[in-house]
């Protein structure tokens, strides 16, 4: 290959701040941009959760930092909390930030294959963020029709009373999709074509595989929803009747379009988090990953299977009841590939020599918490039981037990693990552990009560339960208060993290090249990696998980070390 001719590149002109950080085509900088934007949005989403949970615990109270909560406020906050956490936190951080940062570093090349497309992807994403935030400041306020945006409510301003908020919300989501399509094409083609010499299919680290598979699943599932977004947008602003039954449209069509994407989407965020966890577990258990190939191919299978279950969100939505039988079976069956991935991660611990560093704690907590989220999905997948559970807080607790581990715990695992590589310094372990316990314990105290409330019939998106005598009992209110107080505790502990994060960036202990004795390629270059990543691009001689190989003095064996 014509690589040697290029190897001397990286001639450094002094670049202005603007060029360096905002107009850069370097994958590492773009990854940071996504990371910081996602972090900012996480704080906003968390703040929204605080505001509406305060209203639930203390209805009518003047909420510190927000004020009084009106019903339209409440709906807008819930809607945008969900939207932000999924589309502006989970996806940009797990896929875009770590995908950008890790893929070139882990497959041993100097950048993405389309650096300028990459930059454009972030810029469109930033635009989408601004559009979403702007929707809070338009006449009528932000959209409040739930993150699922079911028409006719979302389609007609006379129903949702947010003539500007609804179209802006939709526009923001559509732009975000466009950004991720561009990013996805980059991730996929880079991984397919630009791997280091010698890196074969089974030498690719799991996290890279997972991000790429997630991008593929995203790309293939988002199409109908993209078309649906155009249709819904026309309904909103031109007054067409695609989803208006009175004019020959059908509101249920949107639900299908949404969930045909929506369910694959949950695996789109699950897989990268799973990959991060797998990589961390192998390093800190000093173990080879259990059954790499089996997991890889089951993940392919899970990806395909994820396209067959979508209507389990619509059991009660008025779809033809006979279809429910099919979707029950497919939904229950999807527990099998997910179980393979989870069980193999647990099996990896067997026979290990486990170090409980902060990233490892996060990774283990991910599995611990996700298991509860996963198994509660089975209740919902059984159509008969879902008649009772649908749109109750049981569903809510189910998906927070999946999403929180993924989007928050998984992110913290990744950030604490790759922090030395990203910023060239170590984070403080003690603060890290304080933050860990201060997040995970309150997390359970928030959502276990919500499981109980859900079982007792409490339904979603209600801003004040005192209207419902059966739900207004004092015992119920106690649990709501418990959840809210735990949330405040958890949010308070986030300042520990933020302090640790920024302080370590400036003053943390300097990081070596390979502080964890890890195998994968990103640890073979400087921390942080220079422009161009390596002076001389590496070649690969073995798989990513050769830890504790018998007969070797070291318990690790970097991928680029000739045997």
């Amino acid at each position, binding site marked *: 290959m014509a690589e040697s001719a290029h190897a001397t590149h990286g001639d450094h002109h002094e670049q202005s701040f603007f060029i360096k950080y905002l107009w850069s085509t370097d994958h590492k900088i773009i990854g940071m941009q996504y990371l910081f934007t996602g972090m900012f949005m996480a704080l906003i989403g968390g703040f929204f959760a605080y505001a509406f949970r305060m209203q639930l615990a203390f209805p009518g109270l003047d909420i510190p930092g927000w004020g009084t909560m009106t019903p339209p406020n409440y709906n807008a906050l819930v809607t945008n909390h969900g939207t932000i956490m999924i589309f502006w936190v989970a996806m940009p951080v797990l896929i875009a930030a770590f995908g950008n940062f890790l893929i070139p570093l882990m497959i041993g090349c100097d950048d993405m294959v389309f650096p300028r497309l990459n930059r454009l992807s972030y810029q469109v994403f930033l635009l989408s963020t601004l559009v979403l935030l702007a929707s809070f400041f338009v006449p009528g306020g932000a959209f409040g029709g739930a993150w699922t945006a079911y028409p006719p409510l979302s389609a007609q301003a006379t129903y949702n009373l947010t003539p500007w908020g609804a179209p802006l919300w939709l526009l923001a989501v559509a732009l975000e999709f466009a950004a991720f399509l561009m990013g996805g094409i980059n991730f996929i083609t880079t991984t397919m074509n630009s791997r280091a010499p010698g890196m074969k299919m089974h030498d690719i680290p799991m996290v890279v595989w997972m991000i790429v598979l997630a991008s593929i699943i995203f790309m293939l599932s988002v199409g109908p929803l993209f078309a649906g977004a155009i249709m819904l947008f026309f309904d909103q602003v031109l007054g067409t009747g695609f989803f208006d*039954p009175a004019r020959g449209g*059908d509101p249920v*069509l949107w639900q*299908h379009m949404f969930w045909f994407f929506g369910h694959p989407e949950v695996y789109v965020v699950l897989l990268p988090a799973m990959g991060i966890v797998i990589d961390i577990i192998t390093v800190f258990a000093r173990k080879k990953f259990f059954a790499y190939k089996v997991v890889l191919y089951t993940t392919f299978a899970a990806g395909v299977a994820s*396209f067959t279950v979508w209507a389990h969100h619509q059991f009660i939505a008025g779809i*033809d009841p*006979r*279809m429910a039988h099919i979707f029950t079976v497919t939904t229950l069956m999807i527990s099998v590939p997910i179980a393979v991935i989870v069980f193999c991660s647990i099996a990896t611990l067997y026979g290990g020599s486990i170090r409980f560093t902060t990233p490892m704690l996060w990774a283990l907590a991910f599995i611990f918490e996700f298991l509860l989220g996963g198994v509660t999905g089975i209740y919902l997948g059984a159509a008969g039981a879902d008649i009772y559970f649908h749109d109750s807080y049981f569903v809510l607790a189910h998906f927070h037990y999946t999403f929180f581990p993924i989007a928050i715990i998984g992110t913290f695992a990744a950030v604490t693990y790759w922090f030395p590589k990203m910023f060239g310094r170590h984070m403080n372990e003690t603060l890290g552990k304080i933050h860990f316990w201060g997040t995970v314990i309150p997390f359970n105290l928030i959502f276990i009560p919500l499981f109980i409330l859900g079982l007792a019939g409490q339904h979603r998106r209600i801003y004040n339960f005192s209207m419902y005598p059966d739900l207004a009992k004092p015992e119920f209110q106690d649990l709501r208060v418990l959840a809210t107080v735990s949330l405040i505790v958890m949010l308070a502990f986030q300042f520990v993290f933020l302090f640790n994060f920024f302080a370590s960036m400036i003053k943390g202990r300097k990081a070596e090249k390979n502080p964890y004795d890890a195998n994968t390629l990103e640890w073979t270059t400087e921390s942080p990696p220079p422009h161009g990543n390596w002076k001389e691009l590496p070649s690969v001689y073995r798989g990513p998980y050769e830890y504790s190989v018998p007969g070797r003095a070291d318990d690790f064996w970097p991928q680029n070390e000739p045997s």
Partner: protein
Amino acid sequence: MSEEHTHHPNYVKIWAILVVLLVISVTGPMIGIKWVTLFTAFGIAIVKAYMVVVNFMHIGATRRFVPYLVVTCLLFMFLFFAGVAPDVMKADGENWSKPSWLEAQAQAALEGDHPH
């Protein structure tokens, strides 16, 4: 670079065939038999699309996974159709109905299948 070289068939000939197919698909409906129309319209569309994919886009000369990818996309779309059609394509089903659609259907049946 291991760039595969594309074999270039006689494009003008293929174009001519495509145009003939187009003419058939336009004249098909003039016969006025419904299934002939359907066949000349959609059967021929599939043939035309196939010819373009194979001859102009050289899908045979690419790596194998490209046709797999495209076929997978199409299969997912059929899946989508199959899952959605029972709700959207029908005016009534098990324990549900869309009264206004049923009305419109009755109306259309009254006016006859081919109003012109």
